[in-house]
């Protein structure tokens, strides 16, 4: 038993040495990522006056570079495709821990899916490449995407996909210097797509609770919260807007797009739910005007 125990200890030591060395590999993984906003966020390199937060509607429909030019304040877009409000709340918490508190948070509502049970996810896959940062590692363990062994072992912190594959730059993960992801003006891709209008029955209480928490966090930190409702290539979902307004605090400003974007030739849209760069420019102008008029 003694000899066996000794060999186990020696082998474990070898493994631990190898595991320690693996941290170097973990630190190389973010370098390969086309979208490194989460790294900027956690290393405190954003520090913008205006922060844009939300799902793809935020990433594609609001252009932080334009906003900066028009409002004369620094802006950064932290919109991530397919993410839900729980994810946004967590991003905001990290942002506040590591960066200067923003003056304004523009939270782009995902019409009509913001409170939907099925649509939008807590995307742990976005955090995985940045697992070398302990905050993300802990969150991945908390969300069950990594085992508890990842608290201590570097090998348990990554998967074969993040370790060995180099992601390609695509339309969806390419961001400009201020984090926005404008979509190209090309042939409209949303023919035949339609949304079902928002219904109370599909609402997720956890998502509603997290939206409340997001407002609470803004209030606590003195951040002016603007909830922006961007256009879809469809008539405005009145039921959704009404639900959203019910959930907004008096201190939360709610801005619904004013301009008519829907044209017979889909000029401003990339698909049914996202504006192209032309449309995003117009919507950014609308938000800029709103921010300038409501300082």
């Amino acid at each position, binding site marked *: *038993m003694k000899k*066996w125990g000794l*060999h186990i200890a020696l082998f474990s030591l070898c*493994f631990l040495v190898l595991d320690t060395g*693996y941290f170097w590999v973990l630190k190389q993984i973010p370098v390969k990522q086309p979208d490194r906003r989460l790294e900027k966020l956690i290393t405190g390199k954003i520090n913008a006056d205006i922060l844009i937060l939300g799902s793809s509607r935020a990433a594609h429909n609001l252009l932080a570079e334009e906003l900066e030019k028009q409002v004369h304040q620094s802006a950064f877009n932290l919109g991530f495709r397919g993410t839900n409000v729980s994810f946004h709340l967590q991003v905001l918490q990290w942002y506040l821990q590591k960066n200067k508190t923003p003056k304004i948070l523009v939270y782009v509502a995902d019409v009509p899916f913001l409170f939907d049970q099925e649509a939008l996810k807590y995307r742990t896959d976005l955090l995985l490449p940045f697992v070398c940062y302990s905050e993300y590692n802990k969150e991945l363990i908390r969300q069950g995407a990594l085992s508890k*062994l990842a608290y201590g072992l570097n090998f348990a912190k990554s*998967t074969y996909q993040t370790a060995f594959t180099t992601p390609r730059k695509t339309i969806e993960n390419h961001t400009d210097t201020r984090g926005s992801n404008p979509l190209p003006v090309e042939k409209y891709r949303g023919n035949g797509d339609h949304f079902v209008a928002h219904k109370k029955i599909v609402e997720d209480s956890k998502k509603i609770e997290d939206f409340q928490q997001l407002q609470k966090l803004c209030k606590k930190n003195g951040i002016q919260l603007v909830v922006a409702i961007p256009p879809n290539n469809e008539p405005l979902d009145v039921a959704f807007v009404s639900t959203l307004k019910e959930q907004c605090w008096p201190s939360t400003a709610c801005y619904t797009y004013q301009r008519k974007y829907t044209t017979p030739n889909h000029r401003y849209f990339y698909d049914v739910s996202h504006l192209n760069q032309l449309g995003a420019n117009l919507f950014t102008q609308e938000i800029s005007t709103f921010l300038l008029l409501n300082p």
Partner: protein
Amino acid sequence: MLFNTFTFAWFFPLVFVLYWLLQKKDLKWQNGLLIVASYYFYACWNWKFLFLLIFSTALDYASGIQIEKSTSEKKRKFWFWLSILINLGFLGVFKYYNFFVDSLVELFASFGVSLHLATLQVLLPVGISFYTFHGLSYVIDIYKRRIAAERDFVVYSLFVSYFPLLVAGPIERATHLLPQLKQKRIFTYEQGVSGLRQILWGLFKKIVIADTCAQYANPIFNNPEAYSGSTLFMGALFFTFQIYGDFSGYSDIALGTSRLLGIELLKNFSFPYFSRDIAEFWRRWHISLSTWFKDYVYIPLGGSQGGRWMQIRNTFIIFLVSGFWHGANWTFIAWGFLNALYFLPLLLTNKNRSHVEIVANHSMFPSFKEIIGMGITFLLTVFAWIFFRAPSVSDALYFIQKICSKSVLQWPTVRPTFLIVLLLFFVLVEWWGRKGNFALEKLWVKQSRILRWSLYLLLLVLLFLFQGEPETFIYFQF
């Protein structure tokens, strides 16, 4: 509790340390600890079903003693049938009741008669098929006067509920396990190393091979309409490796764990995908179940002693029952039937025992004839697994129909290069290690420690890199 979870990673070392600390005390202490650990292991899944396990244990324990004690044949029969019927009754209610009700309703519906029979909304107790078979073989052996009844309740309880084999086998025999539970266990260096090697290989099979294959096989089987015939074939291929990695991986972890506790369990797999015909495959796949059915169903039915028709009848019975044991669904029965059909030509030509030794036992490479034999047997099993995995027989037929269509000539849309490389590595290691009880048993044992440890480190690193959400073991549902 799953073997591939963090919970087991602290549970087992704790049991291991306490177990060997108790070695100096009476054997009862060690057995007592194993009972407590086993019940805890089972209760982690659902503590309520622990009572069913304890009841089943107590029933078979008492029946065994009564059968042995009874002087009259009538009493012996009474206790024997009481135990058999209650055991099978539990299995029938929990596992097969809903299937029979649904099948009956469908049958009557096909004649235009609508039946309204209630189905049960109950969970299937994990491992019920395994521990019921433990109990059945024990009672049958006593009734047939092959063994004496066990008087020590702790020892008997441990025989039924020993945690390494409790939920997914191997299905042990009283003649093999009970004597080990009554004798002092010793720990040797070789045993310790071999146990760990088998656990490591089992975890590799489960986490790296089976769970990764599952990621590709599941979407294909869940939505076969969306894929070409060639991709469906890839899906079937991935499932073939998934089920082998999953179940033989579980068995390896169970055997290795038990070896670390000084108890040897029955071998359950012996490189089945290197079989040269289907008869050999069934001597190498889920060995403890195949031999159980042989000893307790096939031989009592007359085995191969009767004429040709009796042999054929018994073969079909054993394969159909084996299929049905796996699950209450027509797909499993179809799977069993298909395997019986595969077996038939070998039986009729008396070639069902042509290959007893492992392939290329005295050489490194197989002969051309052996390669052809292995290839055909492997393809036959791939097709049979489609029935095992598909949700219904019609789904399986659709799957096969599409594989046999022109679209099989298209380039598959799902072809993960890294997984194919991993599978090649896996097959290579299994081939190298095929002469041992498990692939790593003798592999590089005589080589330098650096080489061996490098291999262990590589496997360990792969385990971590491929770990995701722990997937449950397929055989838990049986």
